[in-house]
């Protein structure tokens, strides 16, 4: 089965758009969910997880296709790596917060710290993800920012 189409521009445009929209909706749902609104909590659960998976795909696409010889392509490539780093660190921060809360490492303020860690972490990963997908979407109009398909995919 040929999978080269996922690296074609039309698909990448829709993909970037979808990633951005899902992440923005996740952000809004998380905010409303933190207010205690159950439907938004349920929505946030799905949207955050889906957004994270889509974001990983977006990062892969950008790393594979961005043209590092072009300024915008170079920026996109670096942004993809930074987003990957931010996503990894954000989830580690969340995990740290969970441990703080579970073992009450900071006494009575442990749960507040955990919520703050999670909020900061999810905001960071969503913001970087939205930026990456938005710039990626924009850059798809720029001819120089993207490389040709790898040989084994364009065959």
């Amino acid at each position, binding site marked *: 089965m040929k999978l080269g189409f996922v690296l074609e521009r039309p698909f990448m445009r829709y993909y970037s758009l979808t990633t951005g929209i899902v992440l923005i909706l996740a952000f809004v749902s998380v905010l409303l969910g933190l207010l205690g609104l159950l439907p938004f909590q349920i929505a946030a*659960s799905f949207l955050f997880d889906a957004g994270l998976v889509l974001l990983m795909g977006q990062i892969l696409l950008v790393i594979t296709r961005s043209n590092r010889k072009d300024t915008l392509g170079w920026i996109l490539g670096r942004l993809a790596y930074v987003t990957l780093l931010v996503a990894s660190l954000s*989830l*580690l921060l969340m995990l740290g917060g969970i441990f703080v809360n579970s073992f009450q490492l900071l006494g009575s303020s442990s749960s507040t710290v955990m919520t703050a860690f999670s909020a900061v972490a999810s905001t960071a990963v969503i913001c970087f993800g939205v930026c990456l997908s938005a710039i990626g979407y924009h850059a798809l109009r720029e001819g120089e920012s993207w490389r040709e398909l790898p040989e084994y995919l364009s065959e």
Partner: protein
Amino acid sequence: MSLAIDKGTYVTSIRSRPGNKQRAYAAGHEQTVHTFQGDLRLKLRAIPRYVLLLLSYSCLAVSVVATLIYLFQNSTTIGWLVTMLYPETAPFLSVAVFASSVIIVRFSFMKNRRGVLVVSIVCAFIVMGTFAPYAGIPSETASADEQMLERYGSAFTSLDTSSMRTMPYSAFDNLYGVPIEQSTFDTEKDILYLDNGVDKFYFDWYRPVGEGPFPVIIAIHGGAWVIGNKGRGNVIPFNEYFASHGYAVFDIQYGLFDVTTLPEQQAAVFRTFAAIGSGFSPNYNGSYTIQQQIENVGYFTKMLELNSSAYAADMDNVFVVGRSAGGHLASLVTLGYRNPLYAGNFSAGMTVRGGIWFYPVTDLTSTGTGNLGTMLGGTLSPEEESKKLSASFLIGNSTVTPPIMLLHGNKDGLADYSRQGLAFFERAKSLGKACLLVTIPWAGHAFDLIFQSYGGQMSTYYIERFMALELAGEGA
């Protein structure tokens, strides 16, 4: 011929031959000439890349090993240690695994199709191992619901759950915590309840706001009878959650057995525990056998009965909750408090409305756990003593058997799921006793240490319904 080499430059090919610089002819040579500074800069720039690669390979290797141990080796010592935290923490680490794979592919195998494929398969394997437990939640939830319906019938479906958790698992709560209303309870810590001249034993009291009396939860910590403590060692958020829902929670110490007094052969496993958890345990002067530990727990119930009004404790509605070794002690309270074998051990005035045993040891006989020898204590022969201290024996021997809720992870290799959890459940059912088994999918021992994890959430969801229904007199 003059050497037309600028200051600070040299020919690459003769770097390995010190003293030969003078023989280098720059002009007309086909070899590449680099500036010395440029070369050094390149080398320096390569260092972070190699460090990053090393970290990425290490991350991937550790993740592969952890996943393999989790999936296939959960009964070994390292296995149950890994399984204890893997399902709860791995999803958060999966992005780091993904990042490591991307970096490895980018810097090692970008042009190598086979290399990309291998790294991708390894990454996919780890991620699948990470999320496998979550796929098992719906089926285990359905099984638990079925048991609740069988015992409580329509009372289970018509129960007022407005103040309870709305679903067995919420990913949102996993990220942001299970909400606990801190203003609805007070906490008083380190209250002395027993001074035996050698050691002092304390408990923490989580008191709901209001007049009371409140239904009681006696929480008994785990630690293989040799380590552990109340407080941080006994899932504080669990105690707070139920205190905020109107239960007076008593989190107690009960004494620990000193592993240095064990013979070498028996000590191996328990010394592993001691090495892990001695820093979290109280420094008792004495060593307490399991028999003495249950006597201390019994003493607490008597003290609570005497002071029930001071502690706003409703002794007619007592639930006993324990984890691991604490689950074992909770099983002895549940099944032994009206049993002649334990005459005089427990409060005579209390009524246990339910036993809630997290990943307990239910069979202390030699077939269940091996010979525990001097750890058992007591005056009976080891065989009789191990029977007296086993829920699997007491369930068939007791006339009063309060309803039991067992919560066990089906990858528990320490208090083995099949031999300790499932076997007891089947025995209780065959005897016609009220027993519910909530299986936490793909979870190991101590699955609820992280209270907001799926194990903690699932167990809380069923425990609060179980207690509410038993208090309402349903299922009797």
